[in-house]
């Protein structure tokens, strides 16, 4: 088991290296650098001016040298002002030491955001905790509801409850966030006026029922159908097993069979599915946070991508790739623990 986890962690590191290199390459393409320098200078900058800015900020160095600097295995040379002997601020925002230094991911230095004029850490961690709050509430509503629907539907396959719940869960999987978000806003904010159509106040004044219900509902709806269908399939399979028939023939009531015998075995498959929902939640987070103007991770990612904010975008991709791979690992380990028939080699 330990060897398996170590091997998986090794693959994870290699994957992260490959992916960050791809992102690094894409954000450093010439047109993207132009876009960045124009946003940092101004629209009417001359080509020489742009080139000068790019050279000064080290964008004209070798690709691998710069990737190494970002990783923290090659020293960065600060732009020292000869008159004072002090290093200039990176992108006019982030302080850096006066001597060449290692400043990369390995040292815990994520770099400097050109858009928000602050260090990436200062922007990324608050955004992540804000998204964590959103994710928490989404999970709290989505998981119990979907498990309940799945179990009710799978309990008696082919019954009327099963049919209607199945069609309902298909309908929710056909409704992406940007569709359900619009429809819910129209109904609950525009027509009924019960809820707040924007979660912008949640960042400043804290989360409450009025500003947070719509984003949570919008995100949860899309996931509910999928998890419910997986739970249903697993429940249907369990209900056909011999031991369920034995328990029924033994004279146990239907409800007791479902709760004591079927439920625990039926919940193994949904566990994996729920863990694998995290990567999908990331995309959902981006849409929902943009739609409801909630200043979380997704909002930051869109801002970073729209402005080609290199360090911030790399930070965001590192975080999201880590989340995806880590949840995959957890789901594999958890699956092996829950299901004694599967032993990891």
């Amino acid at each position, binding site marked *: 088991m330990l060897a398996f986890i170590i091997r998986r962690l090794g693959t994870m590191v290699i994957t992260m290296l490959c992916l960050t290199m791809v992102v690094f390459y894409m954000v450093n*393409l010439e*047109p993207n650098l132009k876009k960045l320098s124009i946003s940092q200078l101004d629209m009417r900058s001359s080509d020489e001016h742009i080139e000068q800015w790019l050279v000064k900020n080290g964008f004209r160095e070798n690709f691998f040298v710069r990737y190494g600097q970002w990783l923290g295995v090659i020293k960065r040379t600060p732009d020292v002002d000869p008159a004072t002997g002090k290093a200039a601020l990176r992108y006019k925002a982030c302080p850096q030491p006066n001597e060449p230094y290692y400043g990369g991911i390995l040292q815990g230095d994520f770099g400097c955001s050109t858009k928000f004029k602050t260090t990436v850490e200062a922007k990324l961690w608050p955004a992540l905790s804000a998204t964590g709050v959103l994710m928490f509430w989404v999970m709290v509503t989505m998981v119990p509801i979907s498990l309940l629907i799945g179990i009710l539907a799978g309990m008696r396959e082919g019954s009327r409850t099963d049919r209607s719940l199945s069609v309902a869960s298909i*309908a929710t999987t056909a409704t992406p966030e940007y*569709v359900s978000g*619009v429809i819910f806003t129209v109904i609950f904010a525009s027509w009924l006026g019960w809820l707040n*159509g924007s979660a912008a106040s949640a960042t400043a004044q804290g989360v409450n029922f009025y500003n947070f219900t719509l984003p949570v509902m919008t995100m949860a709806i899309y996931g509910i159908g999928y998890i419910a269908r997986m739970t249903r399939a697993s429940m249907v399979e369990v209900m056909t097993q011999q031991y369920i028939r034995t328990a029924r023939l033994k004279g146990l009531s239907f409800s007791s069979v479902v709760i004591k015998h079927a439920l625990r075995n039926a919940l193994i498959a949904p566990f994996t599915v729920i863990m694998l929902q995290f990567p999908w939640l990331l995309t959902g987070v981006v849409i929902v946070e943009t739609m409801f103007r909630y200043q979380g991770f997704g909002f930051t990612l869109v801002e970073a991508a729209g402005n080609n904010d290199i360090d911030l975008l790399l930070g965001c991709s590192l975080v999201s*790739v880590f989340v995806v791979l880590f949840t995959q690992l957890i789901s594999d380990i958890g699956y092996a623990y829950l299901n004694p028939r599967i032993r990891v080699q």
Partner: protein
Amino acid sequence: MQFETIGGFQILFGVIVRFWPVWLALAIVLSASFVYRKRLGLYGELFTNSVGVAGVTICLFWLFTAIFAPLIAPFDPLSQVAVMKDALPGTVVPDTNGVYYFGGDKLARDVFSRMVYGSQIVLVIAPFATMFALMVGITLGLPAGYYGGRIDSFLSFLANLVLAFPVILLFYLLVTPEIRQLTFDSWFSRVTGIGVSIPRGLAAFFFLFPVIFFIVLFWTRFKNRPDRLWIQLALTVLIGGWIYLGLVFAIDPFGLISIEPSTLNIFVAVVFASSPGVFRIVRGLVMDIKTRDYVAAAQTRGESPWYIMIWEILPNARGPLIVDACLRIGYTTILLGTLGYFGLGLAPESPDWGTAIKDASRLLRSFVHPALPPTIALMSFVLGLNLLADALREQSLKD
């Protein structure tokens, strides 16, 4: 200024009348399929349960809407009638007989016509992109599942690499005008004078797979019958190469096949994002099926590995693949909507549903009506595809 408007009932009636070509086509196709359902195989079996009928009807409805869009839509999707800015549903356009059934949007365009024309964009890109993703996934998934070992580890690693990328980040990196402008200097561009950008390069790579697939398909089947083989191969190379040149490099000698650079970019991004998923499914299916007796029999007969993969394993994996293809077209539609919602790739005035939802959702506080038609259209189309997939799955489980 006071406009003449029509009531809710008249709007409903007017819209139903405008859709007349769709109703006609639906009536013909549905009744024909219902009558001959016994002879139509898997498609015919769909008509035995209500979920299947609903799925087929919704999908065909949007298909016919896309085909007959110029007949249905009363206005041009891009034309603006200045006085109709944010007009409410059912407003009669002054000086004409036309009615803005679902009102006007913030640029005074007809919401109804835009919804109808939007279906064209979705129904062209989504199924074709899914087809290409299927081809790529099948061509790579078959050897990965069949041979296992190094090939499998390598291809699976690549697939996981793409799957670990959040889709939205991938789109932001791949589908921007900046990426399209950048061209690389290579031997190819020096010879032909065509600049190769990243989307073009990816298209050149991905679009090769269908051609390879069909060549292998015919080669393995007719290897011992040269008379048939050479005709098939020549046709594949000619037609495939023609489409390939037209789509990827826009140098179709007859000028028939061409694709907008921005559309190509979206196409490539969508194929790139969904082929690893197909790859994984095909790989899993092949690993399961290759343990069957008929595969062992074919191996004993001395058939070549590719013959076994394509002619023994693939036909037996078709059930789950058809179901997955249906779901995947729906998923691709959602992806296209996401692209539109973030304003990536498609032109800002494009009538596709995602862009329309984005434009309308910014103004929800003041006007609700431009948001609802595209959202409901997108939802119903994806729902139709999901119902279809569900019915197909049920049918294939029966066998």
